[in-house]
Structures are given as structure tokens and as C-alpha cells.
């Protein structure tokens, strides 16, 4: 194993990790406002990839228009999920809502299968051209898009939550829902906004990764699992945790291929997650320790 190969493992770990991180960010966004793990998050990513593939590959839309339309359309799906299902449960526990998101994810997946069928969809990378070579290791151009956009999105979300009034209000809902109500914040509206934002974010992730990973109707669950693992590994409820968790997960997976038989990749990553959660339940960065009153009002 020479240096170039080790570098290659690190790069492929970071690329995959950036994908997990993007999905994880969406998880965190909804968790921040609602305490709910939205298991339909992976379906938002899948829908983003499929819609963009169809708009670009079959309808031949210009890429920017296809991407913006996709993000808007999936954002609307997010609003519908909240409007049609989540907000209907007035006094449901968090677990009820989590189960609803699972049900919604199955529905979205089935609809996607009936619509586009089981074959993988795909469109060309944003930037054409051969991959970069750094000290003998290969970096796909699309991977740079994934990592770069991930960094921009994370910085943007950081600013949103710390600087904008809307972001602060969403954060307030997360920290203390009752106190947020007493501040005159319409908590339900914040939940709706968080669903739209995280669906749009999921769609963006789907658009970015499809040139690398293809888009198939059934990819949502695996992505959701990895995104969830990324968030949990970093620690739920902290901005930045999904990024740290995602990159760590990607690197662990890549490293596991070096030291173990390769089929173990997925199990190793989840095993590490379990170990981290057993040793430090709040995640690597430490999430919000205090559990809050979580009945929907």
C-alpha cells in the first residue's frame, strides 16, 4: 500500500462522507425544530436525484433551471408531508411522528417506482473533464462540487441560525418549545418551514450526488440510514455535527476496506456508530443533553 493509494482511500472517504454529511444536515434541521427524526429525509434526496435526472436527461432542460425547479418541487413535497401527515398529529408523541415519517417514506418510494421504474437514472457531472490527479490519487470533479457545496450550505445554515430572526426563532423552538410559544413564535409554522428547508436541502444533496451515485427509487433508505448515522455520530442538534459525523463515517468506511475484508464496509461504520453512542451517547461533539417537553401543542 503506497502513499498514493492511502491518499485515494482518504479522498474517496471524504467524498462519500460529504454525501452523508449533506443528508445528515437535513436530519438535523428537522430535529432542531421538532425533535423528530424524519425518516423520509432519504426520499427527499432520492426525489431530488430522480427529478433532476429526468429534467436534464429526458426533457433537456438547462442545468440551472432543472436544479432550481427540482429543489423547489421537493421543497413543496416537504411542505405536503408536514401539511398532510405530520401536522395532523396534534398531541402525538415524537415516536408517533417518527412512525408517520417512516410511512411517508414508503409511500414516496412506491410512487417513485411506479413513476420511473426500477432502473437507475443519471446525468453528467456539472463540470465535464477528466478527474484531477493529486499525488497520484484521483479526485472526481463532481466530488469537489459535493464537498464545496456542502461547505457553503453548512456556512449558510450557521449564519441563518445565528444571524437571522427566522433562524433564531427556529432554534428557539428546538431549545424550548413552550418558551418559544410564549415569545409569540408560531411553532407549527416553524415546523412547516423546517420541513420545506430540509426537503429542499435533501433535493440539493440528491442533485449533487446523482452524477456520482446514480438515482434509484430505492436508494432513500440507505441514504437516510447513513445520514442518520452521520448526525448521531456527530451529535444531534448541533450545527456542524452532521459534517463532522458524515466525514468521520466516510473515512471509517474507506479505512475499513484497507484493514478488513471489503464486504464489511457498511457493518463497520454502523458498529462504530453503536460504540460511540454507547461510550458517549450525545455523539462526538455532544448534542443537546437536556431532553425537552415534546408534546406537540
Amino acid at each position, binding site marked *: 500500500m503506497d502513499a498514493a493509494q492511502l491518499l485515494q482511500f482518504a479522498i474517496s472517504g471524504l467524498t462519500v462522507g460529504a454525501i452523508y454529511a449533506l443528508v445528515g444536515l437535513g436530519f438535523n434541521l428537522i430535529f432542531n425544530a421538532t425533535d423528530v427524526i424524519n425518516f423520509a429525509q432519504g426520499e427527499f434526496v432520492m426525489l431530488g436525484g430522480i427529478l433532476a435526472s429526468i429534467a436534464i436527461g429526458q426533457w433537456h432542460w438547462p442545468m440551472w433551471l432543472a436544479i432550481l425547479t427540482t429543489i423547489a418541487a421537493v421543497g413543496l413535497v416537504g411542505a405536503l408531508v408536514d401539511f398532510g401527515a405530520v401536522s395532523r398529529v396534534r398531541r402525538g408523541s415524537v415516536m408517533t411522528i417518527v412512525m408517520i415519517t417512516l410511512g411517508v417514506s414508503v409511500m414516496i418510494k412506491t410512487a417513485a417506482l411506479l413513476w420511473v421504474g426500477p432502473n437507475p437514472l443519471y446525468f453528467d457531472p456539472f463540470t465535464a473533464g477528466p478527474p484531477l490527479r493529486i499525488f497520484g490519487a484521483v479526485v472526481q470533479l463532481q466530488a469537489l462540487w459535493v464537498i464545496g457545496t456542502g461547505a457553503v450550505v453548512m456556512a449558510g445554515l450557521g449564519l441563518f441560525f445565528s444571524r437571522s430572526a427566522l433562524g*433564531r426563532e427556529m432554534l428557539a423552538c428546538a431549545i424550548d418549545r413552550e418558551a418559544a*410559544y410564549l415569545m*409569540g413564535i408560531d411553532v407549527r409554522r416553524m415546523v412547516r418551514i423546517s420541513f420545506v428547508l430540509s426537503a429542499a436541502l435533501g433535493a440539493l444533496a440528491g442533485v449533487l450526488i446523482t452524477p456520482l451515485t446514480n438515482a434509484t427509487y430505492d436508494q432513500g433508505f440507505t441514504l437516510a440510514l447513513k445520514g442518520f448515522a452521520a448526525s448521531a455520530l456527530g451529535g444531534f442538534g448541533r450545527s456542524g455535527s452532521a459534517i463532522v459525523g458524515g466525514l468521520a463515517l466516510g473515512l471509517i468506511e474507506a479505512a475499513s476496506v484497507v484493514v478488513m475484508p471489503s464486504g464489511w464496509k457498511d457493518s463497520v461504520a454502523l458498529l462504530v456508530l453503536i460504540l460511540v453512542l454507547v461510550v458517549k451517547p450525545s455523539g462526538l461533539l455532544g448534542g443537546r443533553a437536556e431532553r425537552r417537553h415534546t408534546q406537540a401543542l
Partner: protein
Amino acid sequence: MLSVRQIEVRYEGIAAVRGISFDLAAGECLALIGPNGAGKSSTLRAISGLARVSSGAIMFSGSDISGLRAHQIARLGIAHVPEGRHIFGPMTVEDNLLLGRQRMGDLSPSQGLEMVYDILPKLQERRGQQAGSLSGGEQQMVVIGRAIIGQPKLLMLDEPSMGLAPQIVDTVFELLGKLRSAGQTILLVEQNAELAMDFAQRCVVLGVGEVQLTGTSAELRSRQDIIDAYLGTF
């Protein structure tokens, strides 16, 4: 201004408040006192919409608010400082104050901040600090500041003295006294009956979810039977 009429609040079928009624005039300062479990906090939660009223009405400035959602009630000008403070710990002091934005009405955020810092200069010094890192007394000041930033018509405080050293309690009540003198309508829930009777013009004594007595502080002090039964000896 506020008229609570025969309200009932149930938690999972059990009535915590059973037909409580009282009135509060503009500029008045009223205290709800009584032992643990008497329904004081539940009454405040019902008024601010955090708890649902199963029967009765809550009239505020002439209309029934008992069916409204909590954030709508807050925007009408009812500020509720909840028991246990409920500060937004990870945020800065100033961010905590600014979250009152929805209730500020005509004030701009900077005007609101200016008003609060006038009354609570200490908070200006601490504006950039994480609210969760402050002392209990300072946190209580932040939540009160957060409540008054919208110049509420009605300020409700639930156990503002709880968990604070006697000296700090004095400071808090000094601040509340200032607000009272400025004409702020206040509804105070306080377990420390002595403190409450000193502070409020009138008191409502609650026991097991019902009103036992309503009267001025002086009237109440003459009723040893009520004091013995509901307020303990002091």
C-alpha cells in the same frame, strides 16, 4: 382587563383547576397564592394558552382568548415568565431578548433593547454572553427582560423567587416594584405568601384547584384561619 371565569383545566382527565374565577384591572397587581398543587401554575398556563381550558372563559380586553393558540395570546400582549425560567441557554443574552420580536408591536428591535437595557443595565454588560452561563439571578433578569421587551399589557410571573438567594430575591422584587410603579399590570404566582402579600394589592388564595378567598392583602392578613389552612405559618 383580564377576567377569568369559571375555568377548568384537566391533565389527562384529572382536574387541576376547578372553576376558578377572578378579575384583574389595568394597572393592578394581583397575586395567586396557595400551597403546591393548588392550581396556580395551571391557571397561568391556561391564560397564556399552554394548557387547554376544558370549560369556562378567559376574557382579555373584552374578548375570549381561551380558544386561541399560545403564540397568538402572546402577541395580544400577555407575557408569561414561566416557572423555572426556561431561558434559551445556548443563545446570547441579546438573542434571548430579541426573541420577543413577535410581541414588540410598534417598537423596532433596537428600541426594544434600549428600553430593556434602561431598566436592566446589567444585561447590557452581558449582552454577548451565553445566557445559560449566567447566574440564576441574572437568568431571572433575562427572562423578565425578554417578557417586557414587547411592553406587554399583562405581565405574568410564575415563582420568580424560586431557587434564588434571599438577596437576589430582593433585587428581583425591587425590579418588579419599579415596573409596578410604572403602571405595569402584573399577575404574580408566588409560593412565598409573605412576599406576595407585601408586593400585591390584592391576593387570590387557591386550594386544591378552587378559589378559597379573594381580598386585599390587609384583609387576608386578618384571616388567620385561611393562613393556617392554606399558607402555612410564617
